[in-house]
């Protein structure tokens, strides 16, 4: 995948500028910074491959972190984590039900819940952060079993299991099918409603898990944590090869993209470049990858036209018309109304 190549290039460039970059410590920091985005991106990737999207995960990230942190002040860490996850899953379910029931684009619906959830968190927290979590809760984010932070273990385990499930199980096959052609999936017997709701819940849970771990790691839950989160997750997902329209993408690709984006931004910082440039890079990466995806769509259309044309010519004669090659992929993330589908 071109991302591996890109990461390799960046590594080489950075090694040139700062030979200290490859120290284990640095790499650990890169991975650590990546892990919350990575975990949430897995959930988002699942949802987007199926053709959906959830723009509110930034708020779910924050809300779950807040809830878990706050709960940890009153109950055991286990309850705190479960409470945070329950909230995250519940919010994901709400998103899913809204998208399902209000047949408006998920973009619009989740944009609404993004603001809604953020507002509620602000009101409940009165704008202040939550901190002072007990050691038991903090250890979730700060313990280092075998010298590796919990977050990284979680990220790796989560990503590996998710990748396997998406690639080799019937659920994975149904997710890809749903993203490719929703009607066909429904007609084929895929439980579209159940799968859709489940995916929204999963995306919420992933974002929530990331939020809880982040709260535990930093010992603080604050609204500001969620600010860039949405953009980073969606950028990583799309850069990782998940098509906005659904039906394409892998967990591995998304993981590489997360690491790539982090390598870029931390590398820039390590080289003394203005940290805001990393925003420029992230934004540019998003624009470029969406652009590439559109070009791929057009290429696919061209392939279809060529196939149809070749058929027509092979059959020879004007009484032959090319067979209809079917509608292009449809999804319930009905974005880009100006794009010919």
């Amino acid at each position, binding site marked *: 995948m071109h991302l591996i190549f890109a990461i390799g290039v960046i590594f080489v460039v950075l090694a040139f500028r700062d030979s200290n970059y490859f120290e284990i410590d640095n790499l650990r920091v890169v991975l650590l910074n990546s892990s919350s985005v990575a975990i949430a991106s897995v959930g988002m990737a699942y949802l987007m491959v199926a053709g959906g999207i959830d723009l509110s995960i930034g708020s779910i990230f924050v809300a779950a972190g807040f809830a878990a942190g706050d709960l940890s002040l009153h109950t055991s860490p286990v309850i705190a984590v479960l409470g945070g996850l329950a909230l995250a899953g519940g919010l994901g379910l709400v998103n899913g039900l809204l998208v399902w029931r209000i047949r408006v684009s998920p973009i619009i619906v989740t944009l609404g819940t993004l603001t809604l959830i953020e507002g509620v968190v602000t009101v409940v927290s009165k704008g202040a952060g939550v901190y002072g979590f007990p050691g038991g809760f903090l250890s979730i984010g700060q313990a280092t079993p075998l010298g590796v932070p919990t977050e990284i273990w979680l990220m790796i385990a989560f990503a590996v299991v998710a990748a396997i499930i998406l690639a080799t199980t019937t659920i994975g096959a149904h997710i*890809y099918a749903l993203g490719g052609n929703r009607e*066909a999936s429904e007609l084929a017997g895929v439980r579209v409603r159940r799968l859709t709701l489940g995916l929204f819940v999963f995306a919420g849970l992933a974002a929530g898990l990331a939020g809880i771990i982040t709260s535990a790691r930093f010992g603080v839950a604050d609204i500001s944590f969620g600010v860039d989160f949405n953009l980073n997750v969606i950028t990583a997902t799309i850069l990782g090869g998940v098509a906005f329209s659904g039906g394409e993408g892998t967990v591995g690709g998304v993981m590489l993209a997360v690491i790539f984006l982090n390598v870029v931004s931390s590398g820039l910082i390590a080289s003394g470049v203005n940290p805001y440039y990393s925003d420029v890079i992230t934004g540019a990466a998003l624009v470029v990858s969406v652009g590439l995806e559109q070009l791929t769509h057009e290429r696919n259309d061209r392939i279809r036209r060529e196939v149809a044309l070749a058929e027509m010519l092979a059959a020879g004669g004007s009484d*032959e018309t*090319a067979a*209809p090659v079917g509608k292009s992929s449809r999804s319930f993330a009905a974005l880009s109304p100006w794009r010919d589908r």
Partner: protein
Amino acid sequence: MTTGTRTTERVPVVRCVGLTKFFGGVCGLADVSLDLFAGEIVGLVGENGAGKSTLTKILSGVHSPDRGELWFGSERVGSLTPHRARMLGVETVYQTLELCDNRSAPANIVLGQEPVRFSVGPLKFVDRKAAARIAAERLSSFGTALPDSDVAVRRLSGGQRQAIAIARAMMRGNRLMTFDEPTAALGIRQKRATWDLIRRVASEGVAVLLISHNVDEVLELAGRIVALRLGRLTLDARTEAVTRDEVEAHMSGLAR
């Protein structure tokens, strides 16, 4: 081919009795009764809005009739859902084929009923080799072969895509297969190829309902012709017993 005998003892695989369906104030179907028998190709003709697709959707569980009965074999079927219809062997092949363009032929054919290698709790791991084998078997019985079974179907020719769509439907469509305008946009050669496929499906003992606005096609393929007009059944006769003009007259309601 189509069955020629008229045995009154045959139990229809699908029986519609007095099906009526309204959409708001518009009548979709009015008191339609129809029997479909195994191995028989029934041509369903009618103008746009005559009720053809309403009837198909009731048979496939998408709509439920406001009045009337539906029988599969000797069992009365109430509250049919698309899922249950499929389980009972009813499948439809649409003009647009409704394939998942991003997926391969085997993936499309086994969609919803993937062969499972093993399960871990709720997770079922797909047996891709078995899927490829099933796909190859079914496609080769249609005379279609795919050099590379992993390629996304969007890259395949129209003829291959149609074979895949029919192969998918035949996975479970062992009672009734409805073909909705199967050759509407095809050239002569592909029409004939599709007709062969349809005949092959019928020869496997499946009841075939062929919806077509092309009367020639219906006369060619069907053993029996049924016409709908404004929701009502106006003709149900063996093909050899009607003329082309009669069929068209029953479709359009024009007096001859």
